[in-house]
């Protein structure tokens, strides 16, 4: 069996290593599939559904689906992008996202996707949930207003014995992601910074610094999220 598979994305012939997840296979072919809960190096969870594509006409999450020979993938269609946009809108109304006061603004993946999908206003009513800002940890601020429960911090930030420093608390609609009270001390300066970088939104902020990069020079000020992948010469195998 060949190590490579051929497939199409929006009609364009592509090629990738067998078994790669669709988001990675697409990236190697210069195609951006938006992601939020996915993070390189940890097992995909498939929870946010923003990476939804149509594979041979069926909706699937591209971060959890391995590429296979002959797949026809629909990615940049009006339907799919509308679906993705509605997920972004739901995330905006579900929490409290007041971007002008957010330290992550300009570098935030949720906001950048809203820009990419041209969200001017969410079509759903704002929920204005009453959520706390937890500043009890000496190194970080955990702002529950902005957490999208993607679990990236839980999966990526671990101590030396591989235990997650972040954890879920409560259930259902009141679920929160918090610093595990027993392991909080293990959140070193480096890990705190890493947690902030891993968080796609502004829910984990390192204390006593911020707003480093001036407006106009932040990651998504001038170019849409994903344009680095799209402008890349596809790495032909």
């Amino acid at each position, binding site marked *: 069996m060949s190590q490579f598979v051929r497939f199409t994305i929006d009609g364009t012939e592509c090629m990738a290593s067998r078994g790669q997840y669709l988001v990675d296979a697409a990236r190697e072919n210069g195609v951006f599939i938006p992601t939020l809960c996915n993070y390189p190096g940890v097992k995909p969870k498939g929870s946010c559904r923003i990476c939804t594509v149509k594979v041979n006409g069926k909706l699937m999450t591209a971060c959890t689906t391995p590429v296979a020979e002959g797949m026809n993938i629909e990615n940049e269609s009006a339907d799919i992008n509308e679906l993705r946009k509605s997920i972004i809108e739901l995330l905006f109304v579900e929490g409290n996202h007041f*971007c002008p006061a957010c330290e992550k603004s*300009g570098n935030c993946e949720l906001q950048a996707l809203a820009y990419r999908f041209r969200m001017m206003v969410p079509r759903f009513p704002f929920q204005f949930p009453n959520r706390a800002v937890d500043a009890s940890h000496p190194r970080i601020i955990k702002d529950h207003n902005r957490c999208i429960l993607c679990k990236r911090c839980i999966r990526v930030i671990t101590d030396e014995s591989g235990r997650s420093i972040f954890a879920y608390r409560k259930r259902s609609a009141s679920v929160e992601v918090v610093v595990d009270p027993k392991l909080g001390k293990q959140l070193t300066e480096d890990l705190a910074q890493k947690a902030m970088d891993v968080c796609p939104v502004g829910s984990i902020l390192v204390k006593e610094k911020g707003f480093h990069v001036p407006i106009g020079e932040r990651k998504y000020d001038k*170019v849409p999220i994903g344009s680095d992948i799209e402008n890349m010469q596809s790495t032909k195998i």
Partner: protein
Amino acid sequence: MSKPIVATTSLAGCFGCHMSVLDIDEKILELIELVEFNKSPIDDIKKFTKKCDIGLIEGGCCNSENVHVLKEFREHCRILVAVGECAIMGGLPAMRNGIPIEECFNEAYLNGPTVVGNDAGIIPNDPELPMILDRVYPCHEIVKIDYFLPGCPPRADLIWEALVALVTGDEMKLPYEVVKFD
């Protein structure tokens, strides 16, 4: 043909969006050529004197007066544009949403660190004062809004581009760099 007529107002806003309108610099001369202003803090016309084509709304609704003005704008303007984050989602004032109104009043008038000289412990209650709403409402939850221009404030170029497009009937080209939420 007569010029299109524009009205503007600031509800629960900080006038930052109006400042951003002025931030179009010398293009303001072009704007004066292009449109006529009616009710607006820019020309200090306090009451609508005719039907308008475009109404620019800054700020959301935090009290009964805001709701009244917004409804009046809907009645008098053919097109309503929510300008800025406060008009779109309540903005900074909406940070009180989720906190009971009594707690807000107590903090503002009785217990807050900046409260001085209110020994009688009075919370303003003159019937002349507009009623504070239970929370701050985005404009589109009160009346129909036709267009939304995000930003805090929206970039001057965004307001300019949108206004020109609405006035001339051309397509709204909103370049990536000018559509921002902050």
